[in-house]
């Protein structure tokens, strides 16, 4: 700390050009984070445009190719199927591209659910304090003790046959279920931010001139405390992608014939010894997504709040 203060003394502060451009400057110097950012952008592009560029629809079966290969999945490197096919001749590349769409949708939708639940609860708890705070925080305790996966599986099974359960090929339900179990971190973070900011002078000033509570929270507190929330959300994305892949692996969530990366691995597992490509390529996709968001999240954390370094 002292060495930092000392370093700070040695170099006179540059012209401050705002929190965000400072943070972006720091982010740009972080190589891993920039790699992560580029990969994340690529993943989103693939998710949006990939299925249009896919050589085949993900459902199309090229049985002839499989028969020509002696009834076995086409290996990668085939002129018609770059990454090969599965047992019934579906093009792996096309299926992976569709899977990217699923994973990136998880990334976005789960975090939206998390924010929609976590931010209001945290803000209310932090702002009103006292009994409200106590009640809401006890509720987050309960959520914390809830076995996540069990809860998600239960929800998925319970609502599988409803309209809600069938929306988006069964994905919406999974996304909401994952979101329902992941908002606690954000709620606690928002509460902490609000608690500490509440005492600061600019809030006193806003109160003194009669600004309403809701307005202070939305106009003053949230913008000032948004850095850690962005970090939490970014680092929540790989967790959500992993949760979706795990659920898909055990057969919950996306319904056939659509396949997420996790369910592709589950399908490929049966033939992993003879045709490892059916497992390896989806595993590489998952790894890429997890690593990219983790790098970006780590970089954002270091850039947005140096004090938070290394903490989640």
């Amino acid at each position: 700390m002292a060495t930092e203060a000392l370093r700070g003394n040695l170099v006179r502060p540059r012209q401050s050009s705002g929190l965000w451009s400072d943070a972006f400057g720091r982010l740009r110097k972080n190589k891993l984070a920039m790699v992560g950012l580029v990969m994340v952008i690529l993943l989103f592009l693939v998710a949006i445009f990939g299925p249009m560029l896919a050589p085949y629809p993900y459902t199309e079966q090229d049985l002839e190719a499989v028969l020509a290969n002696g009834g076995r999945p086409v290996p990668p490197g085939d002129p018609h199927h770059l990454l090969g096919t599965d047992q019934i001749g579906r093009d792996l590349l096309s299926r992976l591209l569709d899977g990217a769409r699923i994973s990136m949708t998880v990334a976005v939708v789960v975090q939206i659910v998390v924010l929609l639940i976590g931010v209001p609860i945290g803000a209310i708890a932090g702002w009103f304090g006292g009994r409200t705070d106590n009640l809401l925080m006890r509720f987050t305790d309960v959520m914390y003790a809830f076995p996540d996966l069990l809860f998600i599986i239960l929800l998925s099974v319970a609502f599988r046959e409803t309209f809600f359960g069938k929306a988006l090929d069964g994905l919406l339900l999974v996304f909401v279920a994952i979101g329902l179990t992941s908002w606690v971190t954000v709620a606690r973070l928002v509460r902490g931010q609000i608690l500490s900011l509440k005492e600061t002078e600019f809030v006193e000033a806003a109160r003194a001139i009669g600004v309403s509570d809701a307005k202070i929270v939305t106009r003053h507190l949230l913008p000032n405390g948004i850095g850690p929330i962005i970090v939490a959300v970014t680092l929540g994305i790989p967790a959500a992608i992993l949760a979706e892949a795990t659920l898909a692996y055990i057969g919950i969530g996306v319904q056939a014939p659509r396949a997420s990366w996790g369910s592709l691995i589950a399908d490929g597992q049966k033939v992993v010894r003879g045709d490892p490509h059916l497992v390896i390529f989806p595993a590489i996709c998952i790894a890429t997504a997890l690593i990219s968001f983790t790098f970006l999240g780590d970089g954002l954390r270091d850039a947005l709040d140096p004090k938070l370094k290394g903490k989640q």
Partner: protein
Amino acid sequence: MPAEDAGTGAEMPTIIEVSSDEARRVGAERSLGAVEHKADKLLEVRGLSTHFFTPDGVVQAVDDVSFDVDYGETLGLVGESGCGKSVTALSVARLVPNPPGRIVAGEIMFDGINLLKLSDEEMRKIRGKEIGFIFQDPLTSLNPTLTIGYQIAESVRQHLGLSPRAANDRVVELLGKVGIPKARDRLGDYPFQFSGGMRQRVMIAIALSCDPKLILADEPTTALDVTIQAQILELIQTLADEFHTAVLMITHDLGIAAGMCDRVNVMYAGRIVETATVDELFEGPKMPYAWGLLDSLPRIDDIRGDRLRTIEGMPPLLIAPPDACRFAPRCNYAREVCRTDEPELTMHGAAGHLARCWATEPGGWIS
């Protein structure tokens, strides 16, 4: 908690509990320690330059600094924050964080040994034993998860090779000396159970634990309440006198330097700009920057009742400083020469009164 400090400063408990032979032997050595001098001066710093290699460029935090400390003397090193005084002290103990900092030039003779030539291992044996360090912020300078007793005993055991029991006795003795009541009962306490002033007493006990020849006190009272500041300063002075320990007193407060020191070095922007005895400096400072420092002292006889005077402007950036008087941009008396040539540290007036100023040099435009 601050109540603990009340009254413990002035009346120093003199009861020294010596309950083991080992501790008694250490006590005996201590009273002899001051006699054998291996060199003319305890500390001779010559041409010390410490640079920090940052992404924004090389910061010349300490630039060609030279000064001496006599055996048993208290020397002041005064300047604004960021002038390089702390880095100077860290350089003497070779504690400059590397990277980004590095001592790039100079010689530090300590009791006849050039510290910059020592191996890390040899330096480690001097650090804590011959040179004690008191840091600025007692709240963060003690390890929060180790007991007070352990943190003091640690250096005694390291350097004097005392057994755990003898070390314990020594710690109790030290805590008594720095004015912590019921010392034996507090060995197992953690820093958070002590007030700021008490923690600084613990820091002093650590610094003194092996009876060092030199103590580097880096703004030891800046983080403390005003009432406690005086007690701590008095404690340092009393103990330094008692043990015949030299002190390099680093402070931004000329008032503290005046009260504690025999001689004062004024630092500005990585350089020493004036050296004089305290009396000389207060009677006739020869550097406009030192005038500014003196002027900004609050005075009881100040009848004008206006705001504290401060020195206008900011110290210069220490990346590639120009060949000029570094104070010139903020100096009311600067002329062309000040902006084109840097003055040397030369004799101004009385013997031993050196300053770095064209204006007050013999023949300058201010006399």
